[in-house]
């Protein structure tokens, strides 16, 4: 290898390493756990990688050893012993230990099965092409309500999810908190998670569900209990009508036939609920940042952004009116 190419490689190495390490953190990484279940899985991963690394080094070391010539050959008996211990006994014992460890971890990854865990609050999440319907139960005198594409959870408390699917199989996975669990039409699967740190995390659909599968994600906001209670009260009370032009156009153009803004429009359950929409991180279930421009783009032609989206294009609506509707949605706090 020439000096030049060596320099090239050593110059690119820090970039390559930082790129690889960048995958270890972030809002959608199992390597940066923010929940008990994710931490258990992360621990299992680290143990397996380190254990596998040692075994790999030993095998490669043995290979290199055997490739070096001019050495005294092993006796048949010695080689037989090496095969019996290194090739049979060692893998057998190690695999047995790993199996015991992995199976032993299972109750902590699926803790709601244990009788010691109190019955957690169940939040109902339904996967639909290509968004998430989320229904919170009534709790502590606050009425239940429906929202979409953004899940809010209290930190340090166990929460259970009833997972359903309305059309095809989806999969519920919050890499930073734990999971995953498939959502199957006609079935209710239960998953329980315990967030341990506040923050905003991203959860992609983890089962191919159609053309916009990659554009189907939701945000998870883990909050302190007090802030969570405030948020729940606000959600449950809905949004008071303002009589704005955008609100009038929202109803006039038929948006309210599919989307609810609780307290303002009649109940509609076909599309995602939009009450307090402006609080959400994204538009189109994790597809675009929640800005007025992006909301306008989405209303004009949803399929251009999310191929196969059920919502029809509203490109016949004048630009100014779309802007007014976007303005109305941006005010839903």
């Amino acid at each position, binding site marked *: 290898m020439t000096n030049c190419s060596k320099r090239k490689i050593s110059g690119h190495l820090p970039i390559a390493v930082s790129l690889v390490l960048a995958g270890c953190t972030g809002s959608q990484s199992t390597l940066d756990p923010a929940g008990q279940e994710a931490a258990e899985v992360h621990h299992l991963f680290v143990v397996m990688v380190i254990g596998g690394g040692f075994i790999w080094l030993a095998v490669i070391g043995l290979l290199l050893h055997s490739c070096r010539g001019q050495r005294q050959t092993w006796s048949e008996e010695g080689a037989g012993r090496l095969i019996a211990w290194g090739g*049979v006994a060692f893998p*057998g014992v190690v*695999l*047995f230990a790993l*199996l*015991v460890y992995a*199976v*032993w971890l*299972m*109750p902590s990854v*699926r803790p709601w*099965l*244990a009788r010691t865990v109190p019955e957690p609050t169940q939040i109902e999440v339904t996967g639909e092409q290509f968004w998430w319907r989320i229904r919170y139960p009534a709790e502590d005198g606050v009425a239940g309500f429906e929202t979409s594409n953004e899940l809010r959870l209290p930190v340090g408390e166990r929460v259970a999810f009833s997972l359903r699917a309305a059309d095809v199989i989806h999969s519920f996975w919050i890499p930073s908190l734990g999971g995953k669990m498939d959502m199957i039409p006609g079935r209710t699967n*239960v998953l329980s998670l315990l967030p341990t740190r506040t923050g905003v995390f991203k959860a992609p659909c983890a089962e191919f569900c159609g053309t916009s599968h990659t554009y189907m994600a939701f945000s998870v906001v883990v909050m302190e209990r007090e802030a969570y209670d405030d948020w729940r009260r606000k959600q449950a009370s809905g949004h008071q009508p303002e009589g704005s032009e955008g609100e009038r156009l929202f109803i006039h153009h038929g948006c309210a036939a599919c989307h609810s803004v609780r307290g303002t429009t009649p109940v509609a359950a076909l599309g995602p609920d939009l009450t307090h929409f402006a609080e959400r991180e994204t538009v189109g279930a994790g597809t675009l940042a929640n800005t007025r421009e992006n909301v306008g783009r989405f209303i004009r032609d949803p399929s251009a952004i999310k191929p196969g989206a059920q919502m029809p294009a509203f490109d016949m609506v004048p630009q100014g009116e779309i802007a007014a509707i976007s303005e109305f949605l941006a005010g839903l706090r």
Partner: protein
Amino acid sequence: MRLFPKEVESLWTLFTGPSIWAAHFLGCSIAVAVYCEKAGEAPITFAQMRLFLVLITLLALAGIVLSAWLAWRQWGFGSGDPPHDAPTREDRLLFQGFATLLLSGLSFVAVLFVAVPLVLIEACQP
């Protein structure tokens, strides 16, 4: 009358270990599946069910050890070294004994692997 014949000259002995493993695997899986499906109606608790499967496992392991002992005997208690590839009746017997012994070892480990989840499993998943 001998409990075990002095010589076993049948290819079927070769499959004793793997057959016990297969039967144990199927038996445990089916038993747990049926129990969990009918958990409300079953007259036994999960702990009793687990105990029953542990007993089945011990029985399976004992069967495999017996098969291994018979194979070891057939192999002449390790008196000759493999590969036993001469075209003689004697070598065929020794080869079969050795192969049965190895398969019994494999089956023993496999039954243990199957038994681990039975011991650590906590409850039926809803």
